[in-house]
């Protein structure tokens, strides 16, 4: 049991990385990106392709993939997200769901149904573990994942808190119309935020590819895990995603002990239980993703 708890907590690191891009983009643009999971899988395939054709180093492939994905995020924002925002509340949901269908099927057309993995490209890291006493072994990859999650969230928090871009992003998230009046181009800020979200997705993609196998249609389950992480983590800062990831990871890890498909059932069930609890606690206006920025007060009732 102790082992399951340790594994569950470590699994939370992956979910925090996976969810950070979704949470960040929602925090800035108020768009729930339904293509988030498919984009993470796309990033995994991009890194795989780079490893097969350009470099054998996973780290280098990740570094090369980041600018490509960032530019992709910028384009995605210009061509799809901003236009969809102007169309009303429903259009971003419809358009990003449509995008996920297109991405999934393009990946299937290009790469086929074979399961892929980077496990063979990272040598001993894929199976090495440390004994931390008793029967508990922790995988080195899991520790790396968890550490990366803390670093990624910390850097993001730092950018938001201490840089000019971060200030512009926070201001735009609060009130894009006013920001435009004081000489900040909110559209450019949105594009920058999308580029950052895609860099976060690059991390999600590489860890997805290293930890397990993936297929072109893995995007929907990744989206659901990311969404559950954000909702469970709930209110608060970016660190909420780490907390949400840990809770989800624990639920899945313990569920897997009970039944082979208990892994997924327990995760979804915990999500629903937390949802019901919040409904009966009468807590929410908008449940879940209320992503308050560091060091900025949002007036009550404004955030949708």
């Amino acid at each position, binding site marked *: 049991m102790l082992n399951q708890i340790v594994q569950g907590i470590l699994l939370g690191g992956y979910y925090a990385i996976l969810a950070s891009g979704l949470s960040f983009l929602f925090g800035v643009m108020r768009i*729930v990106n*339904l293509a988030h999971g498919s984009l993470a899988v796309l990033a995994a395939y991009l890194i795989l392709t780079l490893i097969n054709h350009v470099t054998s180093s996973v780290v280098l492939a990740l570094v090369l993939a980041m600018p490509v994905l960032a530019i992709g995020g910028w384009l995605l924002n210009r061509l799809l997200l901003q236009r969809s925002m102007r*169309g009303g*509340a429903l259009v*971003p*949901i*419809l358009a990003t769901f449509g995008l996920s269908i297109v991405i999934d099927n393009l990946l299937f057309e290009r790469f086929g149904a074979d399961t892929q993995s980077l496990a063979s490209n990272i040598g001993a890291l894929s199976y090495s573990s440390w004994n931390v006493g008793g029967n508990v072994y922790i995988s080195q990859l899991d520790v790396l994942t968890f550490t990366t999650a803390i670093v990624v969230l910390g850097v993001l928090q730092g950018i938001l808190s201490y840089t000019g871009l971060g200030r512009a992003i926070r201001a735009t998230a609060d009130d894009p119309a006013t920001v435009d009046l004081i000489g900040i181009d909110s559209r450019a800020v949105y594009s920058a935020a999308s580029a950052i979200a895609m860099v976060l997705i690059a991390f999600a993609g590489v860890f997805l590819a290293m930890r397990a196998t993936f297929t072109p249609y893995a995007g929907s389950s990744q989206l659901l895990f990311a969404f559950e992480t954000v909702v469970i983590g709930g209110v608060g800062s970016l660190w909420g995603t780490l907390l949400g990831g840990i809770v989800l990871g624990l639920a899945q890890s313990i569920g897997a002990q009970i039944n082979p*498909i208990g892994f997924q059932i327990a995760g979804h069930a915990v999500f*629903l239980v937390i*949802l019901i609890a919040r409904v009966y606690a009468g807590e929410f206006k908008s449940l879940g993703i209320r992503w308050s920025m560091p060091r900025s007060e949002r007036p009550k009732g404004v955030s949708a």
Partner: protein
Amino acid sequence: MSTSHNALAREGISIQRWTPQAAVFTLVLGLLLVVLACGPLFFPPEVIDRLTTLFVYILLASMWNALAGYGGLVSIGQQAFLGLGAYTLIRLSNAGLNVYVALVVAVLLVELVSIPLGKLMLKLRGGEFAIGMWVLAELLRLLVTLDPIIQGSTGTSLIAMNAYAPGARRALTYWMALALLVVLMGTLFLLLRGRIGASLQAIRDDDTAAASIGVNVFKSKQVLFILSAVGCAAGGALWLAASITFQPGSYFSPQWTAYMLFMVIVGGLGTFEGPIVGAILFFIAETYFGATGVEYLIGLGVLAIGFALFFPRGIWGALEQRHPLRLIPIGYQLRFARLKTGIGPKDQVE
């Protein structure tokens, strides 16, 4: 209501709901239904099968539109009710109930289940509702695969259908599909035409403002949620009656939502006629391009994005905007009897 009617009448304005087009169209629709009802007597078997499929598509599209177009709630999880409808049919049929009786009972049972689910899920908004419904569908799929009768993801069959000869089975399923389509579309029509229709219009335009003038936003959305769940359950149960095999993965698949979304976006979100147009187009596209598989799905996705971004009103919405075309009398039209100056003889108010 009546005082405002009188006030309008003094000004020589009357409210009419029926247009001549709508009257003619209703007559044509009535005749079409009579012909369709007699279909099994003279259509060849393959036509009956294809029409059953089309009826299910129209039903699903209209029910997804009821939620998204009139309730402002995009659900990526309506496959939950498709799957539940089919699964409940399997269970009831295995318990010895006649298949077609079981089909109706299954739909009613899903209605009961959808009431508490709606109460919970409707607390979510926008994208949260969209994915929250998807999570719900996934959870239900996993729970259904735990049922030993379903044999995990392998699935099972609606064995009781063997009791019917192929011809009788085909005709009965067809009639069942037509009957459920008429009943559920009729219910949607009456809802939209009645008091709740006006509330829904107000909610779709601005739900905060609607709530402030006393519209019960939650209750109206709840009614749509239940109707949509019932419609999707009927679609799932009918699909099972027509195709016999049940695999949790294919009934609880988000692909269904992708299809519904495509039909509604292309046909016209928030119009009564749009989903019907969309379903017919989807039906034709599937007939000609469905075999290409992946490319077909990519095409559907690209078209859905294109319509959402550039033609959010869809085909029917665009037609309605250009021509005062109201085939289904849901809205209100004002008639100005005394104003014979030619200025604004008719104003559409919806």
